[in-house]
């Protein structure tokens, strides 16, 4: 199964790394969208269809925390799987985000194997690496 993925990070380098890591991980992607800000991502998620969001926390403007809260208010967390991709390792904050409906957490730097594992867990699918 191929997923429509939205990468949300203020760093264009990280968005490029996410695209590359998805490819290396073997996770099938039918559409790859990018947002550099939380409010931009929120608008895209309200108006376009995505299955999976890979989202940073520490962003200028609307942070990843605020984006998750907005998605919770909109009821979108029930239909879109959100995985936090961050260098922050605060377990209390991660637990709080999970309690709101965030499905997974990956710590930067991103690695293909850990991305594949978490996507598989979150989406309930099994993907092998591309050969």
């Amino acid at each position, binding site marked *: 199964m191929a997923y429509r993925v939205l990468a949300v990070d203020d*760093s*264009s*380098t990280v968005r490029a790394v996410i695209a590359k890591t998805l490819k290396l991980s073997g996770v099938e992607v039918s559409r790859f969208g990018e947002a550099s800000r939380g409010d931009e991502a929120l608008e895209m998620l309200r108006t376009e269809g995505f299955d999976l969001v890979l989202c940073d926390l520490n962003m200028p403007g609307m942070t990843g925390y605020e984006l998750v809260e907005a998605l919770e208010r909109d009821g979108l967390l029930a239909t879109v799987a959100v995985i936090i991709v961050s*260098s*922050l*390792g605060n377990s209390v904050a991660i637990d709080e985000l999970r309690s709101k409906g965030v499905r997974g957490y990956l710590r930067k730097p991103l690695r293909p194997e850990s991305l594949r594992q978490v996507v598989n867990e979150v989406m309930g699918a099994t993907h092998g690496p591309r050969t």
Partner: protein
Amino acid sequence: MDPGHNASAARVFADVLAEFAFLFGDAVPAVELPRLQGKGYLACLPITGDAEGSLAIGMPEELALRIAANTLGMEPSDPEVSRKAPDAIREIASVMGGHLVSALSASAGALELSPPAVFPLEIADWERLRADPATQCFAVDEHPALLRVDLAPGGRST
């Protein structure tokens, strides 16, 4: 600045460079550090919470290009790499900040980060930063790099 914090920062700096950009950094005395040739960058990341201060990373443009190239899996000569170099430094500072906050949480308490900002670094600013005893100096694949963590008991009242 707690010397333990400096040691943690140096470890995080080396680990993140290796993991993020496949580059190896070794601590060197300031007097042995090569001078900045040409353009440099300084990434600054404010830290708030139970302690307050900042994380600053200085490096020449050549090293920034290497980091961007290695991170993106491209050649340093690629125009895309040149365009993304400041962003790559900003991101590596952000990742280091996140790992540093985790490493210091037991001794410095709960710390929060703001998004880093990147500035051009002139030779005079580089020399000033390098000469400061609180700055740690590194050789990263023969390129010089500067790391400075300032943290003081802070800010937040409970």
